[in-house]
């Protein structure tokens, strides 16, 4: 049953709320394993393709679900050991919210009905708010308030967009269930004006959640204030879910013959996000904020890739997979760094290679990966996007794209070099590193590496199925 992927974490999450932390931590990992099992069953279609009134297993949804489930497995493992080191007054709330967050994101991945998708995206905001809020400091309060309010207003606008899409159906007297599958089938009959209006509102709404500029303002605050496992989940999984919402509408636009319009809008928002993050990353003083701006950049890259289409669409999907793996690894390393130094300020860190050799190496390798250098996967995906853009003749867009990439690399490399290689006078560290907390980020990075050398055929096929509806192909 497809619905199990969100029902099981939902029930487990509610139970963990009322159980002591001792039971909550193992429950987190156990649920992750069960979730991964059900995702694998769906992935290999062992339960058969499913199409209900509200849910369906689409290739793009399965891709997002698989990434989510895989990440959660490692993040929950990390959380178990992380929690041993930090003081948290309400740990059951944190563990429970992690599971409820997993549940709502899984629901996004399999939702087919337009409004059910909306409900699930709004639920992700509400379930993740306690995760950001958990330290109850002044800063985390501010971050949570901004997050909840900006995202709720954004997503309310997406609801308006959904109503416009439904109205475009009524305008042309088409009456089908308002699920993406049935709408795609009748897309050519829909009223184009209202469909365009709907797409814009949905893009603004879910774009807020995805962190596209200029609606990204909540993202650096939320990512820097949340505890590191939550940041990793926010950046690696939540942003993909929001992207999925936009992608489903983009597919609908393509089916309605309005693909050119939605592509251009996506490219514009994507490039804006890349430029904004390039400007803000240059003088960053906080390493978690630096990673957050890098997430905005990468979401911009994905939007540009999907907008260009063809080969670039394949690159964008690949980018989504590798970004999730590398970025969550970086955030988990950042958690270790924060535990060790007790500060998020870059100037107060340094000498990581000597003080934290394992974490230092992982963090640096992750940085190499996120900047798009071989041997990590982001190199291939960015190359594919650039090639696809040149093939499509989008020279202006790709110039801005490459310019932003260079700027971001220049800005971030200075900061990371300082953190990893610079000398530090006092060797006083709060919590020494341990294999238990260093291993999950290493494994996530290794997965990205393995997927470069050997991309399993089922992943390759799923990506192709996911992008075929917007004219994306590998050979194009």
């Amino acid at each position, binding site marked *: 049953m497809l619905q199990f992927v969100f029902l099981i974490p939902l029930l487990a999450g509610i139970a963990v709320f009322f159980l002591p932390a001792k039971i909550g931590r193992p429950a987190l990992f156990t649920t992750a394993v069960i979730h991964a099992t059900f995702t694998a069953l769906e992935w290999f279609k062992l339960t058969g393709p499913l199409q209900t009134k509200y849910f369906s297993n689409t290739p793009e949804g399965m891709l997002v679900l698989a990434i989510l489930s895989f990440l959660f497995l490692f993040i929950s493992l990390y959380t178990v050991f992380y929690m041993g080191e930090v003081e948290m007054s309400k740990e059951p709330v944190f563990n429970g919210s992690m599971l409820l967050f997993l549940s709502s994101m899984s629901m996004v991945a399999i939702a087919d009905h337009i409004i059910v998708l909306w409900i699930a995206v709004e639920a992700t905001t509400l379930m993740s708010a306690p995760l950001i809020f958990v330290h109850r400091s002044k800063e985390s309060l501010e971050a*949570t308030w901004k997050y909840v309010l900006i995202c709720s207003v954004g997503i309310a606008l997406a609801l308006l967009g959904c109503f416009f899409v439904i109205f475009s159906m009524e305008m042309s007297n088409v009456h089908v269930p308002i699920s993406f599958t049935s709408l795609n089938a009748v897309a050519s009959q829909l009223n184009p004006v209202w469909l365009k209006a709907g797409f814009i509102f949905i893009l603004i709404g879910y774009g807020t959640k995805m962190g596209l500029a200029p609606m990204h303002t909540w993202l650096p605050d939320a990512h820097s204030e949340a505890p590191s496992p939550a940041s990793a989940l926010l950046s690696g999984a939540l942003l993909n879910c929001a992207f999925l919402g936009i992608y489903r509408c983009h597919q609908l636009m393509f089916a309605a013959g309005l693909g050119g319009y939605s592509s251009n809008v996506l490219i514009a928002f994507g490039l804006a996000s890349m430029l904004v993050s390039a400007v803000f990353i240059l003088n960053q003083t906080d390493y978690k904020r630096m990673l957050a701006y890098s997430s905005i950049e990468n979401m911009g890259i994905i939007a540009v890739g999907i907008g260009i289409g063809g080969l670039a669409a394949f690159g964008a999907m690949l980018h989504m997979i590798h970004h999730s793996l590398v970025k969550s690894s970086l955030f988990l390393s950042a958690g270790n760094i924060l535990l060790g130094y007790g500060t998020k300020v870059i100037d107060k860190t340094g000498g990581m290679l000597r003080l934290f050799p394992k974490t230092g190496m992982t963090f640096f390798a992750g940085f190499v990966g996120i900047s798009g250098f071989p041997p990590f996967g982001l190199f291939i995906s960015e190359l594919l996007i650039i090639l696809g853009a040149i093939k499509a003749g989008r020279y202006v867009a790709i110039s801005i794209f490459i310019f932003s990439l260079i700027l971001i690399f220049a800005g971030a490399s200075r900061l990371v070099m300082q953190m990893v290689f610079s000398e530090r006078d006092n060797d006083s560290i709060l919590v020494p590193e341990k294999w238990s907390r260093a291993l999950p980020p290493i494994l996530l990075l290794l997965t990205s590496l393995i997927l470069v050398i050997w991309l399993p055929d089922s992943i390759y096929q799923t990506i192709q199925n996911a992008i075929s509806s917007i004219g994306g192909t590998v050979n194009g």
Partner: protein
Amino acid sequence: MIHISNIFLALILLSVLLSLRSNRLMALVKLIAFQGIVVSAVPLVLDTAHGLTFKLIMFFFLLVLVKGVLIPGLMSIAVNKVVVSREIEPIIGYHASLFAGLIMIVVSVYITNNLYFASMGTSHKLLMVTAITTMGAGLILLMARRKAITQVIGYLIMENGIYLIGTALAKEVHTQYVVEFAVLLDLLVAVLVMGIVLNDINHTFDDVDTALLGQLKD
């Protein structure tokens, strides 16, 4: 003959304008309760041709329960807990906000006349005008006020506006009450989460002024 739905829409517009003018937090909460109840009743009086079905009436009671009782109840608990009872020094003044609200009505009439080329009756047109004004006024309130509670109320007014637009545009939605129920549940939880954060802001800062929330920036 004046259609009964027009009276309801006029009441909604009135509550919107009052909310832009009001500076007492408790009065705003009462307004949002009133507006919630009237907004819930709009589907009942709008399309009497189809008759009142049992489902429609049940859903009306559910809406009133959430929008008219539970959410305002939560908000009034929050207002009673905070130290301040008034909005002081709004970012945009009361007269200016009220004026902006009036302009919003004109704009929404313009939008409705130009974009709304459907073959629907005048009552639907008026509904669209009211809905767009409500949504716009909610946004104004959200941006023009400093107190966190007023911002939540702005969000709720905006949500009411979107609900009205949904009522005007999409009859299809009303056939699936499961979905509407879930939307309502989301709204309720949103207010609950906002209320909890609000309470903590009040504890930490001894105020609910969002101007105090300015630590995080680049």
